[in-house]
């Protein structure tokens, strides 16, 4: 039996290697770089510009969540050269030896990266060896000022019965738990069962007031006014405000999550130098600003920050001040048991009602 299983696995391995072998193209004159990034997280023109300037062909794939990306990289079936995960996921990848140290000699544009964000990166990459910040931002509350009269300042508002049926929460456990944990004054990274139980009770209480749990659909729903108040990452805000000027963004006074999405190079990357060229290219101030205009998440690139007009630079959603950031926490990886705990509680919440 064991022999048969081994044989079957070998055949499977052969099939896979044959497929990738046959399917792979030769790439540009200087080879390829396989990029794995969030959906809608780059100005597509930038990819073309990179290809033209460097002669490296870009093979570009996208993911929707860190959790979806991680098992692919861990299984090692696909060798991406450069990936853009979030902070806590980078911490987990470093801990599991999935990342390669970056050779910063190949990235002269590092000089533009803000010191403050590099310092923030130390939460998950203590020696700043594995990651180059791409974007950062905060989790806050987005509300429609034409439907809500008061000025929102607290997570409390997401439990306000006046807004019943018009509240949106994120359909991902870590983001979802941010609101009750901060209201209760606990850390976002707690794995204390008693603290999480309290947070879970609050979320159970909140569920009947919700319209739905969402991810990307938040955009359409908030623009159309189908919902009036929602959890929202700051990066979406500029785009949304452009389409519906009534939308306002606030970082709740209790504090929130502060995230950094950074480029990392996986340990099994086949084109490490091309990956470094990719990171360097993206940090050219002109390119960084072009990308910022498209994705509208705050950029750590000081060169790009200087190109912003006054109104943009003053917008807390795009450019949160140090004072605001000091109230926010970065997500840390929770470990298997912590993840299982969140998963179980999340299931209980979703099962209710």
């Amino acid at each position, binding site marked *: 039996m064991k022999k048969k*299983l081994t044989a*079957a696995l070998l*055949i*499977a391995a052969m*099939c896979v290697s044959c497929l990738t072998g046959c399917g792979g193209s030769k790439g540009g004159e200087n080879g390829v770089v396989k990029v794995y990034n969030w959906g809608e997280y780059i100005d597509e023109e930038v990819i073309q510009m990179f290809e033209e300037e460097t002669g490296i062909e870009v093979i570009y794939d996208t993911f929707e*969540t860190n*959790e*979806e990306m*991680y*098992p692919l990289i*861990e299984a090692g079936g696909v060798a991406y050269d450069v990936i853009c995960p979030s902070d806590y996921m980078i911490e987990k990848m470093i801990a599991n030896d999935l990342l390669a140290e970056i050779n910063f000699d190949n990235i002269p544009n590092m000089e533009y990266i803000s010191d403050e964000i590099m310092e923030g990166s130390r939460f998950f990459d203590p020696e700043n060896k594995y990651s180059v910040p791409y974007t950062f931002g905060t989790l806050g509350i987005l509300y429609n000022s034409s439907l809500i009269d008061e000025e929102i300042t607290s997570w409390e508002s997401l439990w306000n019965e006046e807004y019943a*049926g018009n509240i949106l929460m994120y*359909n*991902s*456990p870590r983001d979802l738990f941010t609101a009750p944990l901060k209201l209760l004054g606990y850390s976002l990274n707690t794995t204390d069962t008693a603290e999480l139980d309290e947070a879970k009770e609050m979320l159970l209480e909140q*569920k009947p007031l*919700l*319209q*739905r*749990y*969402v991810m990307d*659909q938040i955009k*359409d*729903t908030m623009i*159309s*006014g*189908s*919902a009036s108040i929602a959890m929202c990452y700051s990066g979406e805000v500029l785009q949304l405000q452009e389409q519906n000027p009534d939308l306002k963004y606030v970082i709740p006074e209790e504090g929130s999550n502060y995230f950094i999405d950074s480029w990392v190079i996986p340990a099994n990357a086949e084109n490490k130098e091309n990956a470094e060229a990719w990171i360097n290219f993206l940090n050219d101030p002109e390119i960084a600003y072009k990308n910022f205009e498209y994705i509208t998440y705050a950029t750590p690139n000081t060169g790009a920050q200087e190109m912003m007009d006054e109104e943009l630079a003053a917008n807390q959603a795009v450019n949160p001040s140090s004072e605001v950031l000091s109230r926010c926490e970065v997500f840390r990886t929770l470990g*298997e048991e912590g*993840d*299982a705990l*969140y*998963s*179980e509680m*999340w*299931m*209980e919440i*979703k*099962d209710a*009602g």
Partner: protein
Amino acid sequence: MSKKLLSGPYIVWMVGFTLIPLALIVFYGLTDKAGAFTLENIMAIAQPERLNALLRSLKLSLVSTAICLVLAYPLAMILKSLKVGRGSFIVFIFILPMWMNFLLRTMAWQTLLDHNGVINNILRFFNLPELKIINTQAAIIFGMVYNFLPFMVLPIYNVLVKIGDDTVEAARDLGANSVQTFFRVILPLSMPGVISGITMVFVPALTTFVISDLLGGGMILLIGNVIEQEFTFTTNWNLGSGLSLVLMVFILISMAILAKYDKEGEGAAF
């Protein structure tokens, strides 16, 4: 020899994309993270939330299968009575939506059914009461029926067109009225198509997690969502596979019923 050669690609396909993945799911489902044999992943279904999700999925998929059947059978009868060929325009219209991406069609319904969506705006314009089914179980059933209806219509239609007019005429000659003809001749003869249609609607409806996320607004937990969560959030492939095995039991049962009633494969959809 040449026939054997021709089957080569299909054998590679079946082994590579059906048998090996299936074997991997069984392997993961019956082992823990260290690779030792365990039944824990299967027994995990007994946890109340998961069991609720399974029962809810069974309920919703049974209801939508029943609705599909009620809608599809008369439709197949009408299509047959129109005496149009299989390649006709009307049959084509029922297949047409399947050319569009399933996800896209479901997302479109989300926008249509939304509180401020297209349908409600039209209703409001005429001062009619608003439709409030988005993010409820009703919306999920609607999505299932909409997406899977063609899979019920086609097998039934394919069986019905094979029943010759002479069979029906013979029944009438022998004194059966139209109701008797239907229940004693047409319905029994069309059973293979009905059973095939039921399986083809029930199985995808039972396992879906996209419809409940999009039209159920993530508020209603189905067994598909539970399994998805094990793979995407906790990255516990063993538990996810174990739960998939439990789900497979229900799928195997419906396949067994299909095999019993449809020995000649008459009910094939295409």
